C-alpha cells in the first residue's frame, strides 16, 4: 500500500492483533492504522472481524496477542472508560442509553460536572444543550426522558454523549442505520466538521453510497484478516465486493435438482410488522429450499418469527394451498392445518432447555403425541426418542443425560429432531449451522435436501453465503425489511448475493 496519498499522521496503530473466541479466530495478526483528520470506512462481510476490531480499539475486548499504539505510545485499554480517557470513543450499534434517565443525565453519565462533590444539574443541562446544538438537535429537550424519544433522536443523543468526551478518534458502528434522513444529513455535516478539527472518524456501514460520499480511506476485512486499505475512488465497487468475498468454498453440498418452476404452496403476501418488515412477498413450493440472505438485521429474523406466530400486530396475508395461515402462537403454528416448525436463532436460549435431559428436549414439542390422555406413555416416549436419535444420528451417551453435555452440532440436531417429530409441512430455519462443525453441517445440508424431497417447504436463513449457494433452489435477499432480489439457478453466486445484499444495483439506479 502506498501511504503517501493519505493526509495526516497515524493516530492509532494496531500491530499483529489477534483475537479468538472459544477457538474460533475472529482476528488474525491484523495490522491497521488510522490517521488523524481522516474519515475511514471499514468494510467486510458478516463475521469479517469488523466488530471485534473496533471493540479492541475501544477497550471492550482485550486482544490475545499484538500491540496497539496511540500517537506512537503503546497502550492497553482494560475498559471502554480507559479508552475514552485517551480519546477513543465508540458509538455502538446497540444503544447504550438508559431509558429512564433524562437526556442531560445520559450525556454526562460517565463524568458528571460536580459542585461541592454533588452533581451540578444546571451545569449538566447547559453542557447537554451545547452538545446538542453542535449536532443541530436544539429541539431535543435536555430534561426529556430518553424513553420518550424516537429511535433516531436517541441515536443523536448517543452521538452528543460521545462528542462530550472530546474524542480524538470517533468510531461509528452502523451509527446511521437507525437515523431518519434528516438526522443522517446532520451526521454527515458533523463528520465534515470533525475532519476539520483533525479528529479521526472510523466508520462502519453497509450502505455503500454513504461510504462513497463520506469516507476518504477504505479498509476491507475478510475472515479476520485486513485485506487492503486504499483511498477513495482507487477501486471500483465490483473490485471491493470481490475483495470482501475472495475465499475458498470448502463445504460439500448434496446435489441440487435441476432448476424448475415449483408450484407455489406457501405464499406470503405483503407481510409487514412495525418498521422491521415492510411488505414482504415470497412464495415457497413443496419440495423447494428457499434461502433467505442479506446483511444482518434486514428483517430476516422478524420474517421467520412473524410466520411462526411469535410477533403481535403482523399485517399481510399468508396462505398455504390457498387457505389462510395466521398462527397466534408457536403452539398454533405447530398444531394448525399447515404445520410450521422453526429452528430458532440461538439454540442455547431459544432452542433447548440446557439442563434438561436429551429425551425431554426431543419431546418438548410433542408431549401430546406420546401421551394417552394426560399421561405420558413410557413405551411411546422411548420409541419416539430412539427414532429421533437414530434418524439424525445424534451421538449421545444416555438419553437421560443433560442436553448441555452434547457438542454444539449434536445439540442442534436435537433441536431439529424435536421439530421433525411434529411432522411439519413448512420448516423455517434461522441460521441452523452457526457455530457447529463441518461434518455436522454437511449432515444438516443433506437432511434439508431429503426433507425437501419428501415434499416439505423449507425457508432457510443463513449468514453464510456459501450455504445459500450450495443448498438453495432459490435465494431471496432482504434489504430494509423487504425482499429486493430473488436469485435462481446459475445467478445464485457470491457476487450477485453480495451486490444484492448491499443493494448496489438499486443504488446505481437511484
Amino acid at each position: 500500500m502506498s501511504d503517501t496519498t493519505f493526509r495526516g499522521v497515524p493516530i492509532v496503530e494496531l500491530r499483529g492483533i489477534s483475537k479468538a473466541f472459544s477457538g474460533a479466530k475472529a482476528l488474525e495478526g491484523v495490522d491497521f492504522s488510522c490517521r488523524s483528520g481522516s474519515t475511514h470506512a471499514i468494510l467486510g462481510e458478516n463475521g469479517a472481524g469488523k466488530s471485534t476490531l473496533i471493540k479492541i480499539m475501544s477497550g471492550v475486548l482485550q486482544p490475545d496477542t499484538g500491540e496497539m499504539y496511540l500517537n506512537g505510545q503503546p497502550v492497553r485499554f482494560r475498559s471502554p472508560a480507559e479508552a475514552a480517557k485517551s480519546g477513543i470513543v465508540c458509538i455502538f450499534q446497540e444503544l447504550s442509553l438508559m431509558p429512564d434517565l433524562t437526556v442531560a443525565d445520559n450525556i454526562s453519565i460517565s463524568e458528571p460536572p460536580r459542585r461541592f462533590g454533588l452533581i451540578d444539574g444546571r451545569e449538566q443541562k447547559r453542557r447537554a444543550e451545547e452538545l446538542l446544538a453542535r449536532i443541530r438537535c436544539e429541539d431535543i429537550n435536555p430534561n426529556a426522558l430518553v424513553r420518550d424519544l424516537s429511535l433516531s433522536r436517541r441515536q443523536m443523543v448517543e452521538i452528543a454523549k460521545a462528542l462530550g468526551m472530546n474524542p480524538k478518534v470517533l468510531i461509528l458502528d452502523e451509527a446511521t442505520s437507525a437515523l431518519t434522513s434528516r438526522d443522517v444529513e446532520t451526521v454527515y455535516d458533523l463528520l465534515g466538521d470533525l475532519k476539520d478539527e483533525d479528529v479521526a472518524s472510523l466508520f462502519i456501514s453497509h450502505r455503500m453510497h454513504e461510504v462513497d460520499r463520506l469516507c476518504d480511506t477504505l479498509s476491507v476485512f475478510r475472515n479476520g484478516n485486513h485485506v487492503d486499505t486504499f483511498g477513495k475512488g482507487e477501486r471500483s465497487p465490483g473490485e471491493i465486493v470481490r475483495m470482501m468475498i475472495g475465499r475458498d468454498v470448502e463445504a460439500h453440498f448434496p446435489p441440487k435438482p435441476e432448476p424448475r418452476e415449483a408450484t407455489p404452496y406457501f405464499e406470503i403476501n405483503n407481510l409487514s410488522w412495525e418498521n422491521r418488515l415492510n411488505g414482504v412477498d415470497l412464495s415457497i413450493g413443496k419440495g423447494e429450499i428457499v434461502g433467505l440472505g442479506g446483511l444482518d438485521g434486514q428483517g430476516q429474523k422478524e420474517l421467520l418469527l412473524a410466520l411462526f406466530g411469535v410477533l403481535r400486530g403482523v399485517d399481510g396475508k399468508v396462505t398455504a394451498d390457498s387457505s389462510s395461515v395466521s398462527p397466534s402462537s408457536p403452539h398454533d403454528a405447530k398444531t394448525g392445518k399447515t404445520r410450521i416448525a422453526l429452528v430458532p436463532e440461538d439454540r442455547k436460549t431459544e432452542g433447548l432447555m440446557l439442563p434438561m435431559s436429551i429425551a425431554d428436549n426431543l419431546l418438548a414439542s410433542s408431549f401430546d403425541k406420546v401421551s394417552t390422555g394426560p399421561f405420558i406413555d413410557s413405551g411411546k416416549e422411548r420409541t419416539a426418542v430412539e427414532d429421533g436419535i437414530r434418524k439424525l444420528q445424534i451421538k449421545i451417551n444416555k438419553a437421560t443425560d443433560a442436553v448441555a453435555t452434547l457438542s454444539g452440532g449434536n445439540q442442534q440436531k436435537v433441536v431439529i429432531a424435536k421439530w421433525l417429530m411434529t411432522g411439519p409441512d413448512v420448516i423455517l430455519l434461522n441460521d441452523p449451522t452457526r457455530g457447529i462443525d463441518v461434518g455436522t453441517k454437511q449432515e444438516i445440508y443433506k437432511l434439508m435436501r431429503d426433507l425437501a424431497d419428501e415434499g416439505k417447504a423449507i425457508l432457510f436463513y443463513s449468514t453464510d453465503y456459501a450455504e445459500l449457494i450450495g443448498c438453495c433452489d432459490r435465494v431471496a435477499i432482504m434489504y430494509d425489511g423487504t425482499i429486493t432480489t430473488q436469485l435462481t439457478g446459475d445467478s445464485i453466486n457470491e457476487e450477485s448475493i453480495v451486490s444484492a445484499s448491499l443493494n448496489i444495483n438499486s443504488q446505481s439506479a437511484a
Partner: protein
Amino acid sequence: MNNLFSSIRPENKPIVIASFFIIAILLIGTGYTLSTQGTAPLLSPNYLLQQLQTGSFLGIVAAGMMMVILLGHIDLSVPWTLTAAAMMAASVGGEMALPTGIAVGLAVGLVNGLGVAYLRIPSMIFTLGVDSVLRGLMVAHTGGFAPQDQATPLMRYLAADRLLGVPVAIYVWAFVSICIAVTLTRTSFGRSIYATGNREGAAYLSGIRTRLVIIGAFMMSGVCASIAGVLLAGYSAKAYQGMGLPYLLPAIAAVVLGGTRILGGQGRYIGTLVGVVLIVLLNSVLSIMQMPEAGRQIIYGSVIVGMLLVYGRGSKVTS
C-alpha cells in the same frame, strides 16, 4: 464424604444431605432425652405419627408451592388462601363445606395465574397483593371477630381421626403427594412445568402453551393451600383469622431444602417430602429440648441458610 457424594447425581445431592440431617436430628434429640429423662420419645412410632399428622398441613402446602417454584415463580398468597378456604368451608358447612373450600383455592389460583401469565406482573408482587385482598375480604366476612362456625364432622375426621392406627391426615397428605408426583413425572403438564421453568422462551418456541402451564401451576398451589386450610380447620375444630400465617415460610423452606431450584426448572418431589419432614422434626426436637422461642428461631433460620450453603449455589451448566 466427597467420594460418597461423587457417585450421586447432582440433583439428588440435597435430598441425600437432608436425609442425613434428619437422622442427625433424631440422634441428637434422642441423646438429649436419654440423658435428661432416660426415655426416647422421638423414636416411638406413635410420637412420630403425631408429628407427621401436624406436619401433613405443611406438607400439603409445600407440595403446591413446589409446582409454582419449579416455574421460577412464588405464591405468597398461601397464608390467606388457606385461611379463606377454611373460613368459607366452615361457614358454608354441611356437605358443601369441602367443595367450597377447594373452589376458593381454585379461584385464587386462577386469579394468580392470570395475573402472572397474562398481565405479566411479577408473581412476588401479584400474589402478595392477592394475599392482602383475601385478608381484607375475610375481615369483612367475619366483621373482624373470631367466626363462630364449627368445622364439619367430615373435616374433623380427615384432620384428627385415625384409620388403622394412622392419622387420616397422613393419608390425605399421601394422596396429594401421589397426585403431585405423578403429575410432575408422568404427565405432559408436568414436563411442561419443568420446560417452562428451565427456559420459558425455549419452551414457548417449542410450542408449549406456557401461559396455561403457569395458570395450571398456580391453581394447583391454590388447591393445595385450600386442602391444608380445610384440614387445619378440622384439626382445630374451627377456622380462625391468620391460621395460615405460620405456613408460608416453612413451605418455601421445605421446597428449597428438598433441592428444588428457587429459580425454577429443577427439583424432585421426593426432595420436598424430605424437606417437610426435616422441618417438622427440627421444630419438635427444639421444643422437646425446651429451647426458648428466641433460640428456636435463630437455630431454625441458621439451619436453613447453612444447609443451602452446603448444597452449593446450584450446578453450573456450561457448554
